[in-house]
Structures are given as structure tokens and as C-alpha cells.
């Protein structure tokens, strides 16, 4: 193995654009030379920024170094380059498991299983479920908070916020906190009124089917919108979730789904 490292290092010195940095970084990682491995992978990525294997390699090195969020972000980039990449989804699930975010880990593993079913993924799902005791979406109606402002509180991280709006932009549930801690849900709701109708019009005009989500990045947060459940006061409304900009874009959709699922249970009670 050291001979291989020398050979690959020599080749990389001769041709810095060579893809040989991939086996070199992996070999260094396996030898525990994580800082050197990281440098090799980062330099390789500078020359091959769209190479999914390079992002995957850096993610594994960062995970070994204990920099879990950085590893997660790299795997998220792999997924953007190669949608459905099972290795990346499994890696992201591993990070979430290590961070104690078990429901997110389970959702990711279910996603991986949907793409590529193998015994490792099934075993991992079983492990997560044993650790959490409760699976995603299993919330009893009686466990819901009585204050509608707190409807999504327990499924959001500290840097996330969510509201459900009716078709006129009025707040039905949730709270939307600005950076200074002020609840600006009414203001945000009013500014988003009409979005659902216009999204419907846009997708109809383009012939691209029903709209599923709108996502936009801002300086202070990433905001995602989805149609609210088509029931009762929520019909024609919006679900709005905002998260810190560092939140991987791929994580927002599952979070939106969980909020919509919670809203469904709440709307059942309201009927």
C-alpha cells in the first residue's frame, strides 16, 4: 500500500489534473492520515468540482475526522450531481444517526431502500427504529400541542421555523421567527398570499403537472413552500418552512413532508 501511495503521489505530481487523487485520498484515509487525505481530496475537487466521486471521497474523510456536518454537505452535493446516489443517502443517514436525528436518518434510509434494497440498509433501518422507539409520522392526535402556534415545534430544530397559511395568507398554525426572535408569521403570510394560485397557473401553463414545492435561498435562510393539505381551512393554502442556510437543500423536502403530515393530523381534529 505505501508503494501505491508513492506511485499515485508521483503521478499526481506529474499531472495535477489526474483522477489518481481519488485512490490516493482513499488509501491515506484507510491509513488514518486524515489531514493529508483531506488536503489531497480538496485539491482534487478544486480541479474536478463536478466529480461526484471526489465529493463522496471528501465526505468519507470528513466523517472519519468527526466533521459530520461537512461530511453531510459533501454527500448532499453528490446527491445533487447524481440524484438517487445510494452511497450518498446512506452516508447522510449515518451522519443524522450520529447526530441523534433518528427520524431523519430513518427517512433517508427508507429513501435509499426505495432505490436499492439490500440487507445492509434493512439492518440499518431496524437499528434506527430500535434506537428511536417511534417511527416517522406516528404521532397520536392526543399528543398534539393545544396551542396552534406550537404545532410544528417538536419536529423542528432550533434554527428552523414553520407556518401553515390559508389561501388568503392568514396563519392557521405554527410560528415564523425572524433572526431577532420576533414572530413575523402574519407579515410573511400576507406577503405570500396568492403564491399557491400563481404556482398552479405557472405549472398549468408549462404543462408540467401539479406543483409540489417552491424553494428559495436567501442570505439568512432557505425557505421552502408546499401546498397545504386540501382540507378544511387549509385548502388552497401553503405550508412554509424556513431553515438555516447551512441546511442541505435535500433535507428541506422531508421536513416539509413531516410538517404537512402533522398538519393532516391536526386538521383531522379540527373537523
Amino acid at each position, binding site marked *: 500500500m505505501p508503494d501505491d501511495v508513492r506511485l499515485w503521489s508521483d503521478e499526481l505530481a506529474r499531472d495535477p489534473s489526474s483522477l489518481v487523487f481519488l485512490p490516493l485520498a482513499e488509501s491515506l484515509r484507510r491509513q488514518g492520515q486524515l489531514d493529508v487525505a483531506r488536503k489531497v481530496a480538496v485539491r482534487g475537487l478544486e480541479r474536478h468540482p463536478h466529480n461526484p466521486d471526489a465529493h463522496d471521497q471528501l465526505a468519507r474523510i470528513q466523517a472519519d475526522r468527526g466533521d459530520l456536518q461537512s461530511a453531510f454537505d459533501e454527500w448532499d452535493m453528490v446527491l445533487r*450531481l447524481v440524484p438517487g446516489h445510494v452511497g450518498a443517502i446512506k452516508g447522510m443517514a449515518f451522519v443524522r444517526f450520529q447526530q441523534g436525528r433518528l427520524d431523519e436518518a430513518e427517512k433517508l434510509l427508507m429513501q435509499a431502500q426505495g432505490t436499492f434494497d439490500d440487507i445492509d440498509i434493512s439492518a440499518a433501518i431496524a437499528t434506527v427504529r430500535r434506537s428511536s422507539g417511534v417511527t416517522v409520522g406516528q404521532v397520536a392526535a392526543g399528543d398534539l400541542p393545544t396551542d396552534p402556534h406550537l404545532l410544528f415545534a417538536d419536529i423542528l430544530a432550533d434554527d428552523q421555523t414553520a407556518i401553515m397559511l390559508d389561501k388568503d395568507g392568514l396563519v392557521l398554525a405554527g410560528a415564523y421567527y425572524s433572526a431577532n426572535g420576533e414572530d413575523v408569521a402574519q407579515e410573511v403570510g400576507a406577503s405570500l398570499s396568492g403564491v399557491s394560485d400563481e404556482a398552479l397557473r405557472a405549472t398549468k401553463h408549462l404543462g408540467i403537472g401539479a406543483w409540489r414545492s417552491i424553494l428559495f435561498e436567501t*442570505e439568512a435562510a432557505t425557505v421552502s413552500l408546499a401546498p397545504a393539505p386540501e382540507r378544511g381551512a387549509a385548502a388552497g393554502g401553503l405550508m412554509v418552512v424556513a431553515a438555516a442556510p447551512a441546511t442541505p437543500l435535500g433535507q428541506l423536502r422531508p421536513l416539509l413532508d413531516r410538517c404537512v403530515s402533522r398538519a393532516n393530523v391536526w386538521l383531522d381534529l379540527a373537523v
Partner: protein
Amino acid sequence: MSDFTAVLDALTRQRGVRGSLVVSANDGIPVDSNLQFGQDGNRVAALAAFLYRKARKSAQAAGLGGIGFMQLEAESGRLCIIGGDEIILVVVAERSANVGLIRVEMLRAAEALA
């Protein structure tokens, strides 16, 4: 041939991209377009600009700062938007298109247009 032609051509060459437009952000009027589908560019421009303005307004209401990349995802396609105060860049893409790459190309194009 406008100042935007090369940028729009490069975007429309991306796999899964059906068209791209440069649109006036405030009134939704198309400035230039490269559409590979038989749709009315004026309508697409107006709809995209409306959604962009709404997102910008809600971001202002929440004190979130300026808007970067924006995406509307539907069952079989996507509308991607990026822009500034004056103009926005709009891409219509298929659902299977690699949105990560489109985002990178749009950010690059937006820099070139700035």
C-alpha cells in the same frame, strides 16, 4: 443578437433544459429568451417574475435579506429562477434535469450578467 444571447444559449444547452429567459423583475416582461418548447414566453416571464417578487417580499418581511436561487418543482418539470433587483434569469427544465448543475450554471450566468 443581444448581450444575453450567449448566456441563454449556454443555459439551454444543459441536459433537460427546455428554455431560458432574461426577464425584467419588476414588470415581468421578457428581455431575451431561448425557448425550446412551444409556449408563450411572455406568460412564462410574467409568472416567474410574480413568484420571484413574492419570494423577495416574504424574505423582506422576515428580514432574511436578498434572494438567491429559487426553484418551483412540479410533477414533471421545474422552473428555476435567479436574479437581482432589475432582471431575473429563468430556466424551464424537465423534472429529471440535474438541478444542482443547473443551479451552478445559473449562478455563473448571473455573475456574467451582473
